[in-house]
């Protein structure tokens, strides 16, 4: 070992830097060239992988802004689509339609999702809970298009026509597993002593769960809900044969309804230049909606009581 060689230098300043230096020096001399090269190679690979993954992200956002911003104007936001081939018109009905569908989805997804989350955290520490947990994860992985078929045959066939309601049901179902798992995780972070304190005061379990556990975990639960919301807001596949799309205004739940994502899809694969421009504009609005939701969540949770928990 080269260790004793270190003490040959007399100056204290050199001595201070000496120990780590000599250790690294001796180590790097023992490490063969090949091992050093693979180490640097691996670092380079990991760094370039990170860069490579972030390039498409930047490219997508840059293109969305460049191509979309020019077509977002007051007409786009307030008018309905013009017939194919004609220029002008907008996506106002699709923006409202997306809101309508998402409202239905939230009415279905939020209570069921939060309810299952409460079950998993407060009652489901057993085999049956594991089964539900597993089913939720499986449901999370079911392709959205398959969910579309299922809702089509469950609701659309029975109703005999496409509707905003069926679209909302499809999206609502897709929200449940995300919300359930997020709620569960957040409730588990609430210390047991808080529950015990509530029981000690004679508060019944339902009240403890709702007003104390759930309330303590609320920042995290809201995060989960918003993430689920953001995830389904851009969904297109399940709406193809449920909400179906509509070129006109519709505010009725039992009628076919336009949605931003559907409109972007239809316009993108159309042969018209003006529609392509509008597709970019619609996509920009859609992404702003989603990124806005995600960013709002980040801000809320970073200032909320469950800091770092989400």
């Amino acid at each position: 070992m080269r260790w004793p060689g270190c003490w040959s230098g007399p100056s204290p300043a050199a001595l201070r830097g000496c120990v780590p230096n000599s250790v690294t020096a001796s180590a790097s001399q023992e490490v063969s060239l090949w091992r050093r090269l693979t180490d640097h190679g691996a670092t380079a690979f990991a760094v370039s992988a990170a860069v490579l993954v972030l390039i498409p992200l930047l490219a997508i956002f840059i293109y969305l802004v460049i191509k979309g911003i020019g077509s977002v104007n007051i007409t786009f936001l307030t008018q309905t689509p013009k017939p194919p081939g004609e220029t002008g018109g907008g996506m106002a009905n699709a923006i409202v339609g997306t809101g309508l569908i998402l409202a239905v989805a939230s009415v279905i997804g939020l209570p069921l999702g939060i309810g299952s989350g409460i079950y998993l955290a407060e009652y489901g520490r057993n085999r049956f809970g594991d089964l539900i947990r597993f089913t939720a994860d499986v449901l999370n992985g079911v392709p959205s298009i398959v969910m579309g078929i299922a809702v089509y045959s469950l609701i659309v066939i029975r109703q005999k026509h496409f509707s905003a309601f069926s679209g909302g049901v499809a999206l609502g179902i897709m929200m449940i597993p995300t919300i359930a798992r997020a709620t569960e995780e957040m409730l588990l972070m609430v210390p047991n002593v808080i529950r015990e304190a509530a029981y000690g005061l004679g508060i019944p379990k339902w009240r403890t769960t709702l007003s104390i556990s759930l309330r303590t975990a609320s920042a995290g639960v809201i995060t989960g809900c918003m993430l689920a919301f953001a995830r389904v807001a851009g969904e297109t596949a399940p709406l193809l044969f449920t909400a179906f799309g509509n070129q006109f205004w519709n505010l009725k739940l039992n009628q076919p309804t336009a949605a931003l994502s559907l409109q972007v899809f239809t316009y993108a694969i159309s042969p018209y230049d003006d529609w392509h421009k509008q597709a970019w504009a619609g996509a920009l609005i859609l992404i702003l909606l989603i990124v806005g939701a995600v960013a709002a969540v980040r801000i809320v949770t970073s200032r909320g009581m469950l800091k770092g928990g989400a």
Partner: protein
Amino acid sequence: MTSIPKLAQVAQSHKSAATTVLQKIRTSYPASSRIPDAFFGVIILLSAISVFAIVVLVAYELVEKSQLSLHQFGIKFFYGHDWDPVNDSFGAMPFIYGTLVSSFLALLLAVPASIGVAVFITEMCPQRLRAIISFLVELLAAIPSVIYGLWGIFVLAPLLREYVQPFLAKTLGWTGFFSGPMYGLGMLAAGIIMAIMVVPVIASITREVMTAVPQNQREAVLALGATRWEMIRMGVLRNARIGIVGGIILGLGRALGETMAVTMVIGNRPEVSKSLFAPGYTMASVIANEFTEATGDLYLSALVEIGLALFIVTLIVNALARLLVWTITGGAARVRA
């Protein structure tokens, strides 16, 4: 009331002593709290059961609506090449081929990239950048599929057509995978788009299981004189490999079911072609394109059967992936100590 020694015994015999004791005491609660409690429990139980019921209902509807096609074609449905709605002859082979090839291509591109990103974030990245980069990678997952498709049509496909495909044809054309007319849109474009979409899935799981590897594993390997890469390989990746495989399978599940982006860039032609430049078709995109236009009962039933096949495959793939990930991160329910 329960005596004190009895209580102590109960407390010892259970893990969560306090809860049990409380339950004992709470049996003496008045009906005014017991009834709402029971009511609340039932409602919560019902919403939990709804998750289970939905999966069962989806499966039932798919099986029921595909009966016609199941009886008509049997197993031949899955290897028949013929997709001819006019003559009521349906074989799903070109779609199955397209789904498998595009998903495989996506994984081929996404797996090294995602593991690289995960390694970078957990082992190499400066502390400050860590949160930003993992947020950006997560943001990739938040972009809707239809926007990937839009970008694929108008940005990626022209790029492939003008630069990438001519280059690939020149250098690797002899393999047969990169030959034929260059449309831009096709299997290659679908694979690349899907790879971008799958990266956040695999990367986040890989990151999670890598973080689950105890710190002293790393320190032990470093203390033996390993370089950083050797530490990552022997100390971290080897311990996390089952979870990483789980993440990859989860990514595969996502890729198999991916619909909109693929439908928009794959070219939608039911052909089996060796060249990745050629247009293809996937199971999900045939449903997306033809479901609302399916006129005959048999046609519709055949499309639902494709959906059923997709459902079963993704069910198996996801179940497998979850089990693998759970073995690493310690079970479905991570109980807080």
